[in-house]
C-alpha cells in the first residue's frame, strides 16, 4: 500500500506555499504560487504541483491543514491553523531548542517565542502598517526603479551608510526622494532600506536566545540575516527553506491530525 501523504498550505499575502510530507514528517515536495486575487486557485495549483513532484495525487493526501491570511479560503483543507502556530512548528522541526522566531512576510512580521519543548510562550505581530515588511521593500524598489530580485545584490555593493528613519512606508518613499536629491547612491539606499526592515523588526519585541529568521523576505534577501546579526550582535539562524517554514508547520500539524 502506498505511503500516506500530508499537506500544509500556507496562503500568504504575496505567495502561497505548499509542503507535502510523509507520515514521518519528512518533506516529500514543496511548491510555490503567487497568491494573486484568487486564493483558492493559487492554493489548488500549488498543491497539484507539489503532489505531482511527490509522485502522488491530491486524492492520496490523507489530511490537509491550511494556514496564512487566506487559510479560510482553502476550501479543500481539512482544518486550519494560524501562521503563528505553523511558523513555530516549522522552525522547531529544525532547531529543537528555546528560540525567538522572526518571520518577515509580505505584509506582516511576527516574533514568536518558544520554550525548549517547542511550546509557544508569546508572540507579537506588527501593528496595522506595513513598515518593516516585504511590502515596504517592494515599494522602495519600485521608487528606485530596481527589480526586487536585484535588491539584495545591489545592497551588497553599498559603500556609504544611508539611514531611512521614517516609520511609514509612504513617508520613507518621500525620504528616499530627498536622499536622491542629496546625491545618495541607489545601492546605499537599498542597503538602508534593508537596515530599516531590521530596525522595525527588532523594535517589535525583545530578541532572546537562539534567533531563527523565516519568511519570504529573508529567503530572497539573505542580506537581512546579516544585517540583523550585525545589529543585535547575535548569530541569526535560518531553516533550509525559510519561506516554506509555515507550510511545513502546517504539514506537520496535518500529520498529527490525520493520524488521529
Amino acid at each position, binding site marked *: 500500500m502506498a505511503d500516506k501523504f500530508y499537506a500544509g498550505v500556507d496562503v500568504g499575502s504575496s505567495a502561497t506555499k505548499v509542503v507535502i510530507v510523509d507520515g514521518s514528517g519528512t518533506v516529500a515536495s514543496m511548491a510555490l504560487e503567487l497568491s494573486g486575487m484568487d486564493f483558492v486557485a493559487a492554493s489548488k495549483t500549488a498543491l497539484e504541483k507539489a503532489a505531482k513532484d511527490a509522485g502522488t495525487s491530491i486524492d492520496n493526501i490523507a489530511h490537509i491543514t491550511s494556514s496564512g491570511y487566506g487559510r*479560510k479560503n482553502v*476550501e479543500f483543507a*481539512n482544518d*486550519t491553523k*494560524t501562521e*503563528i*502556530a505553523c511558523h513555530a512548528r516549522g522552525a522547531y522541526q529544525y532547531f529543537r531548542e528555546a528560540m525567538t522566531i522572526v518571520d518577515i512576510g509580505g505584509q506582516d512580521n511576527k516574533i514568536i517565542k518558544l520554550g525548549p519543548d517547542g511550546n509557544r510562550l*508569546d*508572540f507579537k*505581530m506588527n501593528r496595522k502598517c506595513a513598515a518593516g515588511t516585504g511590502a515596504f521593500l517592494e515599494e522602495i524598489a519600485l521608487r528606485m526603479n530596481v527589480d526586487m530580485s536585484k535588491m539584495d545584490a545591489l545592497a551588497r555593493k553599498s559603500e556609504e551608510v544611508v539611514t531611512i528613519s521614517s516609520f511609514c512606508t509612504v513617508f520613507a518613499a518621500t525620504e528616499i526622494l530627498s536622499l536622491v536629491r542629496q546625491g545618495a547612491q541607489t545601492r546605499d539606499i537599498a542597503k538602508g532600506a534593508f537596515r530599516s526592515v531590521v530596525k522595525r523588526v527588532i523594535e517589535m519585541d525583545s530578541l532572546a536566545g537562539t534567533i531563527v529568521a523565516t519568511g519570504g523576505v529573508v529567503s530572497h534577501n539573505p542580506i537581512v540575516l546579516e544585517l540583523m546579526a550585525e545589529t543585535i550582535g547575535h548569530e541569526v539562524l535560518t531553516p533550509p527553506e525559510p519561506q516554506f517554514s509555515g507550510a511545513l508547520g502546517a504539514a506537520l500539524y496535518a500529520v498529527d491530525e490525520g493520524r488521529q
Partner: protein
Amino acid sequence: MADEKKKPTFRKIEATGPCKKIMADHFYELDEAAKSGSRKIAWCTSVGPAELLRAMGFLVYFPENHGAILGATRVALDTIPIANAAGYSPEICSYLTSDVGAYMKGETPLSLAYKGITEVPKPDVLVYNTNQCRDVKDWFMWYSRELDVPCIGIESFCNIEVSREPHIAAVSQQLKDLVPALEKISGEKFDLDRFKEVVGLSRRCSDLWEETLQMGAAVPSPLTFFDSTILMGPAVVARGTQEANDFYELLIPELKQRVKDGVAAVDGEKHRIYWDGMPIWGKLRDLSTTFLSLQTCVVASTYCNSWVFSDLDADNPFDSMAKAYTDLFIVRSDSAKEEYISKMARDFKVDGFLFHDAKTCPSNSNNRYGMPERLAAKFGVPSVTIAGDLNDLRLYSEEQSITQIEAFIEQIAEK
C-alpha cells in the same frame, strides 16, 4: 471542509427586550422634552455628575452613549471624516469626532432605531467631568459654541494612585459649585433630600450592575462581555432612576438561573478571557462570533465595570460622589490599574488577557506601559494586544486581529 463546523449560535438573554425598552423610553422622553420644552435637558459625560443633574430636575442625555451607537451602527465611518475636515484630528477621541461629524451632517442613527426621532435632543446645559480625559470637555465646548449653551463641569485629577482627602475635597467643592448655575438654568431650587434619594438609587443601580457582572465569575459564565456591552445601557443612561434598578432586578434572576442550571453563554466554554480597554463597537457582532466559535468566553472587562460606583453614599452625597468618580479605573495610575485587573483575573479565573489598544483613546488603552507583559508574567498566562479603535474602523485591521486572537487561543489551548 475547512470551517464546516456547526455554526455557533448566540444564546439570547431574555431581559435584552426590557433593556431595549428602557433605552427607547430614555430617547423618546428626551425627544419629547426637546420638542415641547416640558423639561430641561442636560448633556452629561458618561461618568459625569448625572445624579446631581437628575436631582435638579434635568433629563440627562449622554453623548458618549450616542457615540457608541454611531460606532455600533458604523455611521461613524461617514461622520468622523467630517469632523476631521473641520480641524478635529483623526488622532483624538473618535466618539468626539463621530458625534460632532454626525451633528454637522445633520444625522443620527437614533432616527433609524426610534421612529419619529429626527435629531439628538438639544441641551440647555452641557456638564462634563474630565475624569476620563480632556476630550470630553473639548467635545462639549464645541457644542457650547455651536449651540450657544453654557458648558460647566469638573476638572478632575488623573493618574492618581488612590484618592486622598484633598482630591475628594476639591472635586466635592466643584460639584457644589455647579449648583447655583444649574439652579439658574433649571429654575428649580436645589433639594438636598431629592439629591440624597437619587444618589441612593444610583448606588443601588451600581450594586445591581456589579452583581450582574460578577455572574461572569461562574464556570461556565452565563454572560459574555459582548452581552454586557448591551446590558449596561440602563446603568449608563438611567442610573439614579427606579426604572434602571427594576431592570437589573429582572435580569439578575435570569442569570442566576443560568448559573444554577449550568447554562453557558458560550456553548462548551473552554477558555476564559479578560478584555481590557474599549469595545470595538462596529465589530461587536463579528468578535462575539469569533470568540463563540473558539469556545472562548470573554468573562470580564475593565470597560463594563466602569459603571460600578460602590462609594456612592446617600447620606453623604457630595463627598461620596466625588470619591466614586475619582476612584474610577480610568482615573487611576497604572499600578492601581494593574492591581485592579489582577484581582479581576483571580476572581474570574481567566486564562489570558486581551488588551485593546484603541488608537484614539489613550486613557483607556492600558497596554502602552508594559502592563500586558507584566500581567502575563505574573499569572503565567498569555496576553495579546489588538490594535484598533472604539469607533474609527479605519484604524482596525480585521484579518490581522482575528489571526492574533486565534493564535492567542491556540496558545492557551496548548498550555
